[in-house]
């Protein structure tokens, strides 16, 4: 059966929206103004040490982006990138949300590609911005360009960055690049460092994809079955299940050991049983 392309169902809506944007953009251009550029330029111009953001202000800027023309976005991007690289993290938040909104557009990857290195400077900022940066680089539409891979692997390998943001990057790397050697190396480096159990559970979840076909990644999940944290032990069998039949087969002895483990939490055993019941040939 032939699938209907997912974007086709929204075509009428999208074409209607384009018409409206075209009219609005024409009006703005007629006045010699680019509203998005103005928003971020004005933000930078009005910045002072006493400045503080208003509730919803970052959203008001980003919301204009989805409706704007590609040309208006290109014109506005230098101003947006100036907020991304600003010294004040609050201003950077505006820029980070804006580039995320650009990346959400169907032409997002193309628009952002010239600025990937500038966007990656957010990896040197606070944890929220690191997390958002990982999201921007990994979710831009229609697909992140290959140039994001070295930026993400370099970030994951750093020992002094926010571990949650690094988990986000791991998830993106497996999705964008699959288990390439440099990706597996970055992931094993990450798991070789001590991380809080809650983050470790999230990191395991990030490995839970059929694209994690490298046995070294399976072994990381298998080690999670013996972790001291219930949250991690509960996550590990789910992750193995999501990795696919080969990973499950590889992990079967370790999973059976959990079933026989005295004092193990019922919730953990439930997920292990669920994983073991998956037929090895099914998808």
């Amino acid at each position: 059966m032939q699938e209907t392309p997912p974007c086709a169902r929204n075509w009428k809506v999208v074409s209607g929206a384009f018409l409206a944007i075209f009219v609005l953009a024409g009006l703005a251009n007629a006045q010699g103004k680019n509203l998005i550029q103005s928003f971020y330029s004005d933000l930078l111009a009005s910045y002072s040490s006493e400045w503080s953001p208003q509730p919803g202000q970052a959203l008001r800027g980003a919301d204009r982006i989805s409706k704007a023309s590609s040309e208006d976005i290109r014109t506005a991007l230098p101003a947006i990138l100036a907020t991304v690289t600003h010294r004040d993290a609050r201003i950077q938040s505006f820029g980070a949300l804006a580039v995320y909104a650009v990346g959400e557009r169907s032409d997002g990857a193309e628009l952002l590609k010239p600025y990937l290195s500038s966007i990656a400077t957010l990896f040197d900022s606070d944890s929220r911005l690191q997390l958002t940066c990982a999201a921007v680089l990994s979710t831009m539409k229609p697909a992140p360009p290959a140039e994001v891979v070295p930026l993400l692997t370099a970030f994951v390998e750093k020992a002094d960055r926010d571990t949650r943001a690094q988990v986000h990057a791991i998830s993106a790397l497996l999705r964008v690049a699959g288990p390439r050697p440099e990706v597996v190396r970055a992931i094993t480096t990450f798991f070789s460092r001590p991380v809080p159990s809650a983050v470790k559970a999230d990191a395991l979840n990030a490995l839970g994809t059929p694209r994690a076909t490298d046995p070294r990644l399976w072994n990381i999940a298998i080690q999670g079955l013996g972790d001291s944290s219930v949250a991690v032990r509960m996550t590990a069998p789910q992750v193995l299940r999501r990795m696919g039949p080969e990973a499950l087969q590889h992990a079967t002895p370790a999973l059976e050991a959990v079933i026989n483990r005295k004092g193990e939490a019922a919730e953990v055993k439930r997920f292990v049983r669920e994983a073991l019941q998956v037929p090895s040939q099914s998808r």
Partner: protein
Amino acid sequence: MSYEADGPRGLQAPFSPAVAGKWKGSMWHVDDTRTSLITVGNAGANPTTAAMVLYYGQNESYELRQKLAPGEQMWADVAQIIRTQLPDINGRIIPPDTHFGTYDLLDLDNGSLGQLYEGKLTIDRKYGYAVYGCAMCCLERATMYPSSIYGHQGAKSPVAVRVVNCEGTIDDRQGFSWASQNPTIVSIPLTGVEAGHESPGDTSLGAIVTLVKQGQKYCSPFNVGVNGAASTLPPQTFQVQYASYIPVDHIDGPVVCTIGDFSTPLIYKGDAGRGTFRTAEAITVSVGVNQVSGFIADTGETRNYGTGSPANGSTLSGMDEDGIQYDCRLWNNKGKASPAQFAQQVTFPTLQQAQVLFYGESSNPLEAPAPINWSMRTVIDAPPAGSSSAYANFNHTCYPAHQIKVNNQLVYLYTPPRNDGVFLTNCLLLHLDKVIGQSNTVTVPSN
């Protein structure tokens, strides 16, 4: 009484035949024709502390204290005190232009059963007349205090005997021989102090207290009984529930599902109309007995769907559940986040109030972390009589919806205005626009 042989100066030295713990003195005078010498003695068998308080002017006072051995007396020459500006125990002096006032004598160690006797010498150059004070043994009245007690099962209530003397001065004492008409409802030890609310019902408490009354020579003690009502109310129990949920049928996921060269957007199942949730905490508290039970922390199942969903064109339904995982078509994947990091803290600042703090964070287990977080304090006021009420102090991410219920009564509800990716990034990645404040107080049912 004696007089100068060659002049009009006379001396009176009247001593009262009674002993008491408090004497309300009459007037003292210091002027050209009169001066007063006031004395107080210890008629008891043990040492005691006597206080002599001189009142003058509008509301001014001057106090002397002295430890008196049995039989010992304390003297005060009022004229000399004024003339030499002698400071009292508080460092105060009587101004030189003061000419009259009143006085009290007090037995500080033995209260109303004190053993002081009074004497006063008034040297009156004109009339040679002295007036002495009277012992304060006027009738005391006693009641149980509070006059009735009530509390929830398991609680304790303080109880005492309130004695009011003839001047209206209140003295709360414990009395003795405390007893309950029905100790299975409200119990109390013989020595009183605190009654225990054992089981629902009504009963009464009683005690004996020793008061004093004026005798012929002495203030004499007598015993009197007091009593009052005592009730035990059933404990008031409240279940506090917190939940976060996606308030629509489904939302767009941030990434695409890819198999080989095929990619499709993913959607995530929401909670609207399904009674499901993303994160939840619940606990039961019993106000009055300070009991906590039944802590529950849980997460809802996360399910995502690929191309072809929603199969009915609008909402996810059974038609989307094809049971085939990881194929990017219809139902694609599921996961369950761990609630191990969810926490609670319960305090009972008073016997009528409980405060429940829920806090934690959780991420979609099928995506990179973008944590929902919350810190929700629910304050429940449950007076023994009248209706119970609750309000919430909230601090949470601006996505998804968050709510607090107490015994199924909605106390707080936040519904996000949007469900799109930019808004979620604003709320869950950048943690901008966090929602912080206090809800209105609402009446809640009690169990």
